[in-house]
């Protein structure tokens, strides 16, 4: 049981926000986290920027490029997060591509996460089998959850397997698509949500990719425990700055 489970066990639908650490400015990380918590967000994905984020659309790619240019890297992020648990109680998840984590050392990375109070990781390009064989025990040792993705083309069989080994939640990718917000979901997407819903998985799902406004959020949480907003949040941050965070969240939650 960690903070993620506690949150998932809450009544109601969860709003989770993704942002890229180090963007718009290097030292915005903690401020953004605090403002998100203040605004009533349930969970936060802190993006560890990578030079070649191949599952992401232009918004996240650009924010990553800026963040890296600003000087963000794994060490800096952990420094910034040092002490965060004195001020933040909602689950904090680091979402990042595998290579920076590999370079840092997977064990060292998990240890640091544990130290600063990170609850879990989402590593989109770390395959399940490889994780199980090589890293699962390390994650366990440091009590770090690893959340896996499922997507519309993922087979039922594979979904069941993922369900069986998942900690926390399953990250349900809303469409065959890279990240980037959409105005609404298509009937095909809703069918897919429905299909997964009917599978009665043991692990709760949080929907991500293409969630960006009140409508898509509501549609997504109709079929899952919660939803993650990324690109739309980053765009808003870029245009309107940190002061606009509260309003952005309110507009979703209305």
């Amino acid at each position: 049981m960690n903070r993620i489970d506690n949150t998932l066990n809450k009544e109601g639908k969860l709003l989770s926000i993704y942002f890229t650490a180090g963007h718009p400015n290097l030292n915005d990380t903690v401020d953004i986290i605090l403002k998100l918590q203040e605004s009533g967000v349930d969970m936060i994905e802190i993006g560890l920027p990578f030079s070649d984020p191949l599952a992401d659309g232009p918004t996240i790619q650009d924010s990553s490029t800026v963040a890296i240019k600003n000087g963000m890297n794994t060490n800096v992020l952990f420094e910034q997060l040092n002490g965060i648990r004195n001020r933040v109680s909602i689950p904090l998840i680091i979402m990042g591509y595998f290579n920076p984590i590999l370079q840092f050392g997977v064990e060292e990375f998990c240890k640091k996460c544990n130290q600063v109070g990170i609850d879990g990781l989402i590593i989109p390009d770390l395959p399940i089998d490889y994780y199980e064989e090589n890293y699962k025990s390390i994650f366990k040792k440091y009590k770090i959850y690893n959340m896996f993705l499922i997507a519309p083309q993922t087979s039922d069989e594979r979904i069941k397997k993922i369900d069986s080994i998942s900690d926390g939640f399953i990250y349900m990718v809303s469409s065959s698509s890279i990240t980037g917000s959409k105005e609404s979901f298509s009937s095909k997407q809703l069918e897919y949500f429905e299909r997964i819903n009917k599978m009665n998985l043991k692990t709760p799902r949080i929907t991500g990719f293409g969630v960006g406004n009140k409508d898509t959020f509501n549609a997504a949480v109709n079929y899952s425990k919660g939803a993650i907003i990324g690109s739309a949040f980053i765009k808003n941050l870029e245009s309107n700055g940190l002061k606009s965070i509260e309003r952005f969240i309110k507009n979703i939650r209305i």
Partner: protein
Amino acid sequence: MKYTVDKKGFYGKYGGAFVPEMLFPNLDELEKNYNKIINDKEFQNDYNNLLRDYVGRPTPLFFAERLSEKYKCKIYLKREDLCHTGAHKINNTIGQILLAKRLGKKRIIAETGAGQHGVATATVCALKGIECVIYMGAVDIKRQAPNVARMKMLGASVVAAESGSKTLKDATNEAIRDWINNPITTHYIIGSVVGPHPYPDMVAKFQSIVSEEIKAQLLEKENTQNPNYLLANIGGGSNAAGLYYNYLENENVKIISVEAAGEGVKSGKSAATSVLGKTGIIHGSKTLLMQTNDGQIIEPYSISAGLDYPGVGPLHAHLLESKRAEFMSITDSDAMLAGLEVSKLEGIIPAIETAHAFAAFKYLDFKTNDIVVVNFSGRGDKDLDTYIEYFNL
């Protein structure tokens, strides 16, 4: 088999398929089918017929008399420059287009740097009447205008990759993104022995025709199937993989892999992955990779667009680590001079990629009887502007 891919898609500790879940079904479909399809008799027939009648295979194994005299050994050139579209790249695209058709795909995407793989892909798509989209860095589109024109003449759409440094690495990212967005209709033709499993193995298999032919050709010319040395340039490593493939398990045949040192290994402008790289993940594959301490991928540099890649295929990382292959790094200026020398001595203007392999000769010491087979991976027509400017022709 020490040097072929294992069941999990690894060469020793390198390889694998480090891709987002969205791509898992595509790779799973490929992985489940590629060997079955490739070994299918009808496929083999189609593939071999196209290689013969369309690509122009077998490509000759040419004894380079004047180079041999100069470097005091027996130098044979495997003439991939004579392939349709001018390089070995098409061996792979022919194989993959046939495979894509058998998988029922309706649309092809590919990445390209210098444009050779893009042209080879656009070519087979024209041949088979399949829609084709080529991703190419915006910077490369500008500097490789003739290849862009070739792709367009062949009916392909060329899409500019505007992210990152706007070169090959970013074009690859864009192609992968397209694939994520179009997982069912589309097959992604990767152009080298890079990317997630099963690509490195699949591409190597399609390129293995190179060493298969050499065995028969050497037997005829030298009364042995086995050279003493194989010498190839390495970008991602597909021409090298083709050259080595049927000799990997025969350790009497020595392997020399030549990388691009750019302006020098220590200059900060280099693509010498064997020296500068550390184990990491790029484009879905665990391999040697030029990266910062934080694991950000470093943009490489070489005068040759085809060698301007921050990694090598996982097979090559494994060959280096297991000492099966020796690696050398060749600077821009050595490569350019070698290109000129080969042109003047043998009447064949090499691609600058290929020229890197020839530049190695002056640093090597062969015995007079040593048979050295060099993969003449491509012709220099695409590089004329660079040669003209460099030598003020």
